Each structure stands twice: as C-alpha cells, then as structure tokens.
C-alpha cells in the first residue's frame, strides 16, 4: 500500500489496484479512488499552479468545487484541460499532467510573477500598459495572452462521441445524500416517476465520509438498503455520475451523465457523455452544502484543506492527507475531523478554534489525542511547494503559538449549495443563525431539502428530504408516501462566524484566480463595492470553480469593509451550469456531417451514378453540374450543359422548390390576398407566376402557381423559403383570414419535379407521354398545366413553364417514381441528345433570361426594384400593399435590377463588385449599387450579370465602373436590359 494509505477502512477496493501516472511518474491506486485520493494516498502534496502568481497549490476539497487541483487528463485528441482531480474516478492507465507551469510543476518559471505581486494587484492592468499605445498590441497583450488560461485544449478533433436524451418524470431529485435518498424513497413509494441524479459514482453523499447512524444502523448500511429498495421500483431511475446542471423554464432540467469518463476509452458504440434534458413536474434539490474556508496568511500552502475533505479522504478513501494535522474551525462540525484522523492513526497537532470555548466532549477528545486547543486563529503557515511545515496561531489575549504539522484542516462553516435554486435569478437569503445564504425565491416546482436548505443535522436532512419527496409526489398527483421518516440525531453546529484572520502575508479568498483579502479591500477603496463590481474587478469567483469556496468569504470581507452587513451586500447572480460542461456534450450528435440533416431529391442516387458534383442548398444536396470525362473545369461542363439545352434538350431536378397544395372553395380568394397579382381569375389548367410581399411591402418570395381544379391550386415557392412560406400561409389561413375555407398541405416531398427544356423538349415528351395527350402548342400552350398519362401507365402533372427561356415543361411524378423519371428521361431523350443539367446551368440560363432569384430577392427589394411593379394589383387588398407605397420605397433613385456586361468582352465579372459612375473615385457618395449575379453566357460568349443600380432602368447603355477592391479589380461595364437572351420570348412560346 502507498505511503499515506490507512491500514483499513474506506470504500476502496483494496484487492483491485490500478496503475496511473501524474506528470509521468507512475503510481498505484485502488478501485474506488479518485485521482485526488490516489495522489493523497501516494503522499503527493503539490498538484498545480495558480492562475496569476503561479503559486504552488495542493488539493483543497474532495468534490466538484475544487479550485486548485486541476490537471490535464489523457492526451492527444482526448486531452481534457482543467479537470478536477477530485472528481476523476481512477482507472487503469490514467495519465494526468499538471498545467500552467513551465518547465515543471516544482520549478515553474512564471512563479517569478510572485515577485511582481505587489504591482499585480486586482485590476492593475486597467491602469497600465497604455503607453506607448502601439506596444499594447505588439508586446503587452501578447505577453498577457501567453500567460492566459490553465490547461491546453486537445490538439485534434475529439474522437469520442456524445449524445443527448430526453427523460420525463414526476420528480427529479438532485443529490443522493440523506435528504435526496429519503426524498426518493418517499416519492417512489407514493408511486411517482422519479429520477435521482447523483454526481458521484456511489450514492450517499456526505454519509460516505461522515458516517453516523440512521434508524440505529450504520449509515452505509442504511444507504445500501435504501438503494436496494429504490432499485426495486420500476418507475424510479437512479442516475449516478450524473450532475443536475441547469434549471430552465417549464420544468426542464439539464443533467450531464459521465457515461464513460471512468474508463480509459469509451466502449465502441457508447458515448463518452450524455446530456439529459429532464422534464419534471417537480424537482427536489438535495444538493447538500459546501464547506467554506477561513482566509488566513499562507492558506494556499499545499496541505491546507477543507476539514470535510480531510474526512472524506480519510473515511471514504482510506487516504491520510496529513500525518500530523492542525484543525482550524469556528464550529462543531469541524471537530468531526479530529475523530476521523485519530481513528485512522494520524496525529492532531492542535485544534485552533475561533470560538472562546468548546464543549466538554471536545476537551475530552483533546485529552485523548494529546493535542492543545488554541482559541484564536491561524496567522501564518510556513512551508512552500513541499507543503505545510509549521502553523502559527494568534490566541485570544495576544499570545502566539507555533506547531509543527504537515497539514491544516479548515472549516469556516457550511454554505448551502444554492446554485440550482438561483438560476431563475431568485436571490438567496441570508440566515444569521447559520451565517449562510439559503435559497430565496425558487423556480416554479422546486423544493429544497436538507443541508441545501440550511438544515445541517443528519436528522433534519432525513426529515426534510422525506417531506420534500412526499410533497413533490403529491403535487405531481400521487398519493401519500408509505413508511416512516428515518431517524437520526440532530447534532449541534454551534458556529461563530469568522471569515478571515489578519496576517502578514497573502490570505487567499479565490485560490484559482489568486484573489486575496487585500484585493477585496483595494476594490472597495476604488469604489467597486457592489458585489458584481467586486467580482468583475478582482475576478473573484470567475475561475473554473465559479467561486464555490470563495464567493461568500469574499463578500463577507466586503461587507466588513463597507460596514453594510452581509445580507445587504448580497450575492452575485448564480449562473448555470452547476458544473462546467463539455461543449461536446452540449452539442451531442450534431457535429461533423451530422451537424444538420441532409435532404436528398428523389433522383439523388441516379445523379450520383452520373458522377454529378453536388452543392449544399440549405439542407439539400443538389446536382450542381455533371462533369464529363475530359472536361477541364466546371465552366466547361456548365457551358456544355447550357448549350445542349439551348440547342437540344436537357433536364434538371427542381424538386427542391417548395410545393404546397392549396385547396378548398376559397383557395383563389386566399391566393389573391397573399400574392400581389390575382389568382382567383386564373383558369383551371393554367399556371401563373406570382410574387408575395412581406407586410412591410418588400418582396418575400416568388414562384409559379397552377390551378389544377376549381378548388385546387398547386403553389410553388423558392427552395430557400419553402418552410417559411408554408408557415406564412398558415398564419394567413389561421390568423389573418380564418373566414376563408382553404386547406394547405405541404407536398414538397410528394412530387419529384423535373424541368425539361430546350427546342427538342416536345420531341422528348412525345416519347415519354402517352400518345393520347396533345402536346402541341395549341393543345398545351405556354403556361398550361394539367395531368397527363405517361407511357407505362403512370400519371404525371405537366406544366408548361420556363425558367430557362426555352421551350420547356416541368413534369411532376410521385416521389417514389423520381428515380425512374430521371432514368426514363434519359431513355426518352436519348435520340435527341438529352443532357442532364445542374443548378449552375440553371443559374446561367436564368441570368441570360434576366430572371431574378435569391441574390436579387434579398429582403430589401420591392417588386418595382425587380422590374415587376406592374404585377401589383390595384384592385384588391393583399399582404404588403399598404406599406409598399411608402415614400422611400417608391423613390425614383432606388437601386433597381439591370443587366451588366463588361466593356471588354473578354473580362470576367464577379458578384459583389460595386458600381460607380464612370471615372468617379470610389466613395460612399459615388457608390451606386453592386453586381448581384454573374455567369459566363455560352450564348453571348461573354460574362454577363445582373445588378442593383440607382436609377438603373433609366441608364441602359451607360458605361459605369465596376469596383472590386477585394479582388483588386476595376473595370468598365455597360448597364443594359436584364434580358440578355431572346428578349421577345419567342423561344419559350414556340
């Protein structure tokens, strides 16, 4: 066994040894150890360095409130900075490394910061580093940044995976100490669905460290029996290694389950951690209390530890933090440490008790342990990186005593863990009798029990827990709990508040951030008296422990300085999460390719077979172009596709357009109110292009809508706005115009839709469509829409609409035939050289035709800006009509859509170039617009584009400057009509 391991006792598995290393040194611990307890058992005192002064630090607590003992755990992609040794379950092969030191923990170069500490006081950096100005960024700040932080993030992507889950219950309980267990028993027996969350890997809380008797049985036995009973209840779920971290609205709680942090590597298929969102009707917070220290000179020397932590290490982990200990306490609870140390074979050098007198029992204990009781306070601890050597105490009356010791246990009393109770910004209330903040106004549905509520005796914890569990179950609609409240003694606490002792050297309040009592005094002197100012100015409580051991001490010191009293001084706002939570866990499954889901058009796998290149459009993967062997770049492929369409026939999957069935007797009237143009007059079997505005008069979306029956319109939206338009239309239907009898159904996925375009479109369709269907210009004119029969018996919807400007149709078949449609289009068009084309060619052809799309429908353009003002009906009300007429929206100098083409035909255009009057020098006054969309036009054999330009429509033919400093380009372009190709539109009608 290791040097500081006691001979017997504890909850460790002595038969199961585990090897681990700290800073490369190999050591052995036992199953059931934490890294901290194993280090203590191995006699390690120095485990870390503080943030600012790089002072040597040891283990201070035994829980998640640890400020000092932070390590880097594991290595490579699994390197985990700032991990509290006190919460790491030991596993075989564990590697831990100290952090924030160089070159080594013992010899840390930046400990020279301590020499400058008279200058490096709170807020010193606000007062300096200002001169000369340029040195701040080139010298001072880089220097500060190099010193920043503690541990290092991993070097590569986290190889483990995370997940999230939902749980629902009547009662969620935080903590499985005496109050949490009785709450669970009471609620479970009443029939409630219960979730019991315990941060530790065993149930019992402080009972594992402090023992005691419950119902006449040793506490551990009672815990085992309670656990067995709870595990027998089907609707009670016990979640160990799970911390309740947050309290959100509507009874939603977050909890972090460390599923596989206690093993070296998670088993395959299992997550490292799981974030739970627990939906509970009631919550019982039995999160216990945190012991607080008293600040004194040298209180950060390795070997100074909270008294309760000493007991945890001795009683639970069979590890002796000190062989000769001084206890410094201001309350009876601290005295339990004496028992623990003596029973484990350690010595007590002295007890320094801040109170003027102690009980007879304690005096007897001093006799038995042969140590002195010193009434007063510790004024200095000497030692250093190697740990405590001597302790000096000032006694009441003025004498000074010095004792040799290798450890100090300190207890300044207990603070209820009020964090969870305050996350709805309820302020904790000060209770004078226990000199502590207790929960104030609670979040709805929450009950607090036990020491979290300021009830520190074991008997009271059991009673409050049982009552809270019963109450919570009853509130959730369940009957009374069966059984009696377990009984235990109500031991005295007898605390005399003491926050700090004056001494010669630094007395630390916030260990990790190196905030001392004198820093608090400085803050007060400079006017940072509000606790929030204190926190922000000194960084008190802002370290990774969130001030769990320091906040109350700090504000008590402030209260003393201002003379305002602690209640009036108040606390800072507590903020979730209760313990720092891995960002990976909060992200869960949603990372890498799983960040967002993927939508695939029905022809996707066919397109993949064709070797298509895909582009992300929202969640969709769309075929961008279909490269052919020997093509040197995308431009060559896209140009080929465009030419093939314009000279023959091609097709493109346009299923990503939003598609909405608008049905019902008032469907036409409904569409009249959402579109600027009229649809009620559209004949059955006809399609019409429509524009929707927002109520503020700006264009929202566009698309083609067809009337397939008297009471049935088929509406299409842009790909980008599909979901939003559906939401908007439902708002119109349900809220604005509920009197209209209209029904809306999303049918985007139902229909696989293809655009077939080019002069040979009809030839292709004649192959595909049943000969009984009349596809002639008369039988199926431009903007006609109807159902047709395909060869082979499938019915399809056919729309004679054109985005490309060619003779074109769009054809829709039910989604499951989308794959077959793509394949059959290839067969039907083979003789005509059919060419599948992607979104790039689609975009090229729309620019050639001057159609507006996403870059022009940018949320700030009006129908008039887009050249579509004439579509705005004057005969009806529609969404956006009134606001569209505002003066600035109809001003003559608005930027409107124009065509642009380079004066030098060989020049490439780029979107985002700004447009200035010819020869004007660039300035805000000369900036008249910008290029919105560009393409290489295979038909014009040059680059062309669209732009939004002030008074653009009046300026066709004007030469202006395209100014693109980002890409170091300036060149001349001509403003022109936005329709570059077939402006008469003969091709699409022919």
């Amino acid at each position: 066994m290791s040097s500081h391991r006691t001979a017997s006792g504890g909850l460790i598995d002595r038969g199961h040894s585990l090897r681990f290393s700290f800073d490369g040194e190999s050591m052995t611990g036992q199953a059931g150890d934490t890294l901290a307890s194993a280090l203590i058992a191995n006699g390690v005192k120095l485990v870390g360095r503080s943030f600012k002064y790089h002072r040597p630090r040891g283990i201070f607590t035994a829980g998640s409130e640890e400020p000092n003992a932070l390590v880097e755990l594991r290595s490579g992609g699994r390197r985990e900075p700032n991990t509290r040794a006190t919460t790491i379950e030991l596993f075989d092969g564990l590697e831990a490394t100290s952090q924030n030191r160089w070159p080594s923990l013992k010899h840390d170069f930046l400990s020279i910061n301590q020499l400058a500490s008279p200058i490096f006081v709170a807020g010193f950096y606000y007062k300096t580093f200002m001169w000369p100005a340029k040195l701040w960024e080139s010298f001072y700040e880089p220097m500060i940044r190099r010193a920043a932080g503690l541990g290092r993030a991993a070097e590569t992507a986290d190889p483990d995976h995370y997940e999230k889950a939902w749980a629902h219950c009547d009662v969620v309980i935080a903590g499985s100490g005496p109050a949490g267990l009785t709450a669970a028993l009471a609620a479970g027996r009443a029939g409630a669905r219960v979730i019991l969350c315990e941060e530790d890997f065993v149930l019992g809380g402080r009972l594992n460290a402090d023992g005691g008797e419950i119902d006449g049985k040793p506490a551990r036995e009672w815990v085992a029996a309670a656990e067995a009973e709870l595990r027998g209840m089907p609707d009670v779920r016990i979640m160990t290694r799970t911390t309740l971290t947050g309290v959100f609205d509507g009874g939603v709680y977050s909890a972090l389950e460390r599923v596989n942090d206690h093993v070296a590597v998670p088993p395959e298929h299992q997550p490292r951690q799981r974030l739970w969102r627990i939906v509970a009707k009631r919550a019982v917070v039995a999160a216990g209390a945190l012991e607080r220290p008293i600040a004194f000179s040298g209180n950060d020397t390795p070997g100074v530890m909270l008294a309760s932590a000493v007991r945890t290490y001795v009683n639970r982990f069979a590890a002796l933090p000190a062989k000769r200990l001084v206890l410094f306490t201001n309350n009876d609870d601290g005295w339990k440490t004496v028992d623990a140390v003596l029973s484990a074979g350690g010595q007590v050098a002295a007890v320094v008790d801040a109170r003027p007198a102690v009980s007879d029992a304690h005096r007897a204990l001093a006799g038995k342990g042969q140590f002195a009781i010193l009434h007063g306070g510790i004024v200095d601890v000497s030692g250093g990186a190697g740990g405590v050597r001597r302790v000096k105490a000032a006694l009441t009356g003025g004498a000074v005593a010095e004792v040799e010791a290798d450890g100090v246990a300190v207890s300044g009393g207990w603070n209820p863990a009020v964090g969870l109770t305050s996350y709805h910004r309820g302020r904790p209330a000060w209770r004078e009798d226990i000199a502590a903040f207790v929960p104030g106004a609670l979040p709805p549905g929450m009950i607090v029990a036990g020491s979290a509520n300021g009830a520190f005796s074991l008997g009271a914890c059991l009673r409050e827990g049982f009552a809270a569990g019963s109450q919570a179950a009853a509130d959730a609609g369940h009957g009374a709990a069966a059984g009696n409240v377990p009984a235990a003694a109500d031991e005295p606490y007898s605390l005399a508040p003491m926050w700090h002792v004056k001494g010669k050297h630094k007395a630390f309040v916030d260990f990790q951030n190196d905030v001392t009592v004198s820093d608090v005094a400085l803050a007060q002197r400079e006017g940072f008296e509000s606790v929030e100012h204190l926190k922000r100015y000194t960084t008190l409580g802002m370290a990774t422990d969130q001030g769990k051991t320091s906040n109350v001490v700090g504000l008590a010191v402030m209260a003393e300085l201002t003379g305002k009293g602690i209640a009036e001084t108040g606390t800072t706002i507590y903020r979730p999460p209760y313990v720092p939570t891995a960002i990976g866990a909060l992200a869960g499954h949603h990372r890498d390719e799983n960040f967002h889901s993927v939508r695939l058009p029905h022809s996707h796998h066919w397109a993949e077979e064709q070797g298509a290149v895909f582009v992300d459009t929202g969640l969709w993967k769309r075929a961008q172009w279909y490269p052919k062997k020997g093509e040197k770049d995308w431009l060559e492929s896209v140009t080929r596709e465009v030419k093939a369409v314009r000279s023959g026939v091609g097709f493109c999957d346009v299923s990503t357009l939003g598609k909405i069935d608008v049905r019902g007797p008032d469907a036409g009237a409904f569409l009249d109110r959402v579109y600027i143009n009229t649809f009620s007059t559209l004949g059955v079997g006809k399609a019409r292009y429509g524009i929707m505005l927002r109520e503020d008069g700006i264009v929202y979306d566009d698309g083609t809508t067809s009337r397939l029956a008297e009471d049935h319109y088929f509406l299409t939206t842009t790909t980008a706005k599909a979901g939003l338009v559906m939401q908007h239309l439902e708002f119109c239907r349900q809220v604005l115009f509920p009197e209209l009898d209209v029904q809306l159904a999303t049918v985007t996925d139902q229909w696989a839709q293809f655009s077939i375009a080019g002069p040979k479109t009809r030839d292709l369709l004649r192959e595909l469509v049943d000969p009984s269907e009349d596809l002639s210009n008369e039988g199926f004119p431009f903007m006609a829409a109807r159902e047709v029969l395909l060869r082979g018996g499938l019915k399809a919807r056919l729309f004679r609409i054109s985005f490309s400007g060619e003779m074109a149709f769009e054809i829709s078949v039910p989604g499951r035939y989308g794959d077959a449609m793509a394949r059959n289009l290839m067969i039907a068009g083979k003789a005509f050289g059919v060419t599948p084309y992607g979104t790039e060619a689609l975009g090229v052809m729309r620019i050639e035709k001057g159609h507006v799309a996403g870059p022009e429908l940018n949320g700030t353009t009006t129908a008039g800006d887009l050249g579509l003002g004439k579509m705005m009906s004057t005969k009806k009300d529609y969404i956006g009509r009134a606001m569209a007429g505002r003066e600035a929206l109809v001003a003559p100098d608005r930027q409107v859509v124009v065509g642009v083409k380079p004066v030098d035909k060989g020049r490439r255009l780029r979107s985002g170039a700004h447009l200035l009057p010819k020869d004007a020098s660039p300035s805000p006054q000369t900036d008249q617009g910008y290029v919105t969309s560009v393409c290489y036009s295979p038909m014009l054999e040059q680059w062309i584009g669209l732009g939004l330009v002030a008074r653009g429509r009046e300026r066709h033919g004007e030469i202006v400057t395209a100014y693109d400093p980002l890409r170091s380009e300036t060149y001349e372009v001509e403003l022109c009509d936005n329709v570059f190709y077939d402006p008469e539109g003969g091709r699409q009608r022919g």
Partner: protein
Amino acid sequence: MRINCPFCGPRENGEFTYLGDAKPVRPEGGAGEEAFYDYVYLRDNVAGEMSEWWYHGGGCRSWLKAVRNTVTHEFLSVEAAPGAGGKAVQK
C-alpha cells in the same frame, strides 16, 4: 421551455416558432399607411403578461395564441388561433 399545445399537449419549445405580439390586428385593406405603420412596426413590448403568436411547425402546424409573462417566461394560457383546424369562422 415547454408550450402546452391545445392539440398536442406540452411540447418542447424547439418544435415552435415565435412570431411576436398578438395584440396588433391587421387593419382592413383600405386603412391606409398610418394604420399599417402602427400594425407593422409599433409594439407595446411589455415586461409582464403578453399575448403572442407561436407556430407549432414541428408538430401539428397550428398557430397558437399564448399569454406569457415576459419576465418569468411563465405561460398563463395557450389557445388555438381562430382559424386553426377546420373550424368555421364568421368574418
């Protein structure tokens, strides 16, 4: 946050989309710019109870009118929009 959809029961707020204050009522078409300006732009923005539109787009696609306290986030009531479902509504 959980929203008690009158049709689906309590659901996670991720299923809902927020629109905003339900107090402004869309003016009749001929009401003119000033009335629409008020409707589109001006808000009471109260700290306290506010009626507001939520859309259960991740569920039953109903628009809901909720009364919620903007300080505590507590929902006091959630009811269906007048035209949710197929109810007949008189103008």
